[in-house]
């Protein structure tokens, strides 16, 4: 009798265990994903880990909005707006404090390094020109030729090269036309700021942060696989995916394209997009339609994506090397060129991956 009782118990335990195992295996690791708006763009955040992930995501968005309140020229009492006012009133001198010091210093450095064909291809000090065009306004228009010439005064083409910031945060701008605009760096700075927050939070094991075109993947996915980040197909507004990058955590990816912010001038039918050439004062002339940068810093990936977009793949090589960055260039004739060590797989059948030589030949 005793034996039978034991067998019975054993069988019951076995069955109970199998129930736990079968159902337990099906349980998904905790994750939370949310789409929101901040910094004038769409944010998409996915968090993996434990604890109140919804609350953590909210805090990250709050942080991004706080950053926007610091670095946006559109916000009147932001630190950047104060710096811009000070520069104007104080004969090209102003003071930056806290993180702003580092951001300005880094942005200026990237800008000086991006010099190519007589202009710095990305520049945080050409606000006089970018604000004149204001691609983010409801109804952007082509500015008058005279107002563009006005904005270019004081050698705006290489303005960052004549602007300095010292260790105390004192900014000295030679050109009285100097106005800061972090448009080409802001979202990258945002991902850098979020990286610090994530690293302080032991509850979060992995995360995907997208601030518009700037992405940061952090830590590990629950399945331990690489992160897959898609690149949007450049054709205007289609929203389709060109292909995807497979990468380990702690990677920053930013894309600049002529399809992001653009408008068509009604009288001439000409299309203008938001990446401006500080030498001509108009949209950059290039064979490139989209450039994606992969590297280990948000501000670098964001800044370089604008610079390399304007420079094209050949002239970008030195810059990419200096910042230890990889890049994916797409031209207007549907060629894709992958530069550096990046695991990219093309999925859009309308595009063709080619070598640098073929890419350059196609765009001669």
């Amino acid at each position, binding site marked *: 009798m005793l034996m*039978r009782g034991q*067998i*019975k118990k054993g*069988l*019951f335990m076995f*069955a*109970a265990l*199998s*129930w736990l195992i*079968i*159902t337990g295996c*099906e*349980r*998904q690791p905790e994750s939370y*994903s*949310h*789409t*929101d*708006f901040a910094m004038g*763009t*769409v944010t*998409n955040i*996915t968090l993996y880990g434990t604890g109140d992930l919804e609350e953590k995501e909210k805090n990250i*968005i709050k942080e991004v909005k706080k950053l926007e309140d610091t670095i946006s020229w559109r916000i009147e009492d932001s630190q950047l707006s104060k710096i811009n006012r000070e520069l104007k009133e104080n004969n090209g001198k102003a003071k930056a404090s806290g993180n702003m010091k580092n951001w300005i210093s880094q942005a200026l450095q990237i800008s000086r390094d991006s010099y190519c064909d007589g202009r710095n291809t990305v520049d945080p000090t050409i606000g006089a020109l970018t604000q004149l065009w204001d691609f983010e306004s*409801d*109804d952007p228009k082509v500015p008058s030729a005279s107002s563009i010439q006005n904005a270019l005064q004081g050698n705006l083409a290489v303005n960052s090269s004549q602007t300095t910031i010292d260790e105390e945060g004192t900014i000295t701008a030679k050109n009285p036309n100097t106005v800061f605009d972090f448009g080409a760096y802001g979202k990258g700075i945002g991902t850098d700021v979020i990286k610090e927050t994530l690293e302080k939070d032991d509850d979060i094991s992995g995360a*995907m*942060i*997208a601030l*518009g*075109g*700037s*992405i940061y*993947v952090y830590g590990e*996915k629950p399945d331990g696989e690489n*992160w*897959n*980040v*898609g*690149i*949007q197909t450049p054709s*205007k*507004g*289609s*929203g*389709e*995916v060109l292909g*995807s990058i497979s990468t380990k955590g702690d990677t920053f*990816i*930013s*894309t600049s*394209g002529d399809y*992001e912010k653009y408008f068509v001038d009604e009288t001439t039918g000409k299309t203008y997009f938001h990446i401006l050439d500080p030498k001509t004062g108009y949209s950059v002339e290039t064979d490139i339609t989209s450039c*994606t940068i992969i590297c280990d810093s948000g501000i670098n990936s964001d800044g370089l994506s604008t610079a390399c977009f304007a420079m094209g793949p050949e002239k970008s090589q030195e810059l990419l090397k200096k910042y230890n960055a990889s890049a994916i260039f797409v031209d207007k004739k549907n060629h894709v060129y992958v530069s550096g060590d990046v695991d990219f797989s093309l999925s859009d059948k309308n595009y063709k991956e080619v070598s640098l030589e073929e890419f350059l030949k196609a765009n001669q």
Partner: protein
Amino acid sequence: MKKKDFILIGIVFLIALAGFGFIRWTQHDGTQVIVTVDGEEVYRTDLSKDQTYEIPVEEGTNVMKIQNGEVTMSKADCPDQICRNHAAISQTGETIVCLPHKAVIEITSETGTTELDGITQ
């Protein structure tokens, strides 16, 4: 062992199977379409249900249309019209965004393994 023992084992296994089935069933309960305005969820529906839905945006009009498992923004009076020109979406993880009106249409599923973790635009 007696017949009763087998019955007991059988019952326990049935419970286990039922639990397994329940989890499967709830997880695969269709792919969902979620609509948010300024980050707040305003509507949730099944991708399999053909319908049109007027999104309650503050400024102007956005209308979502679901037909044969594909979602489009069929009407929008935003200045850039990017959402209206967006190709139809049908896969988990895909979105249509109307930036001027802060409206987002998202396709999600509880278990759906998204191929892409994010998209750089």
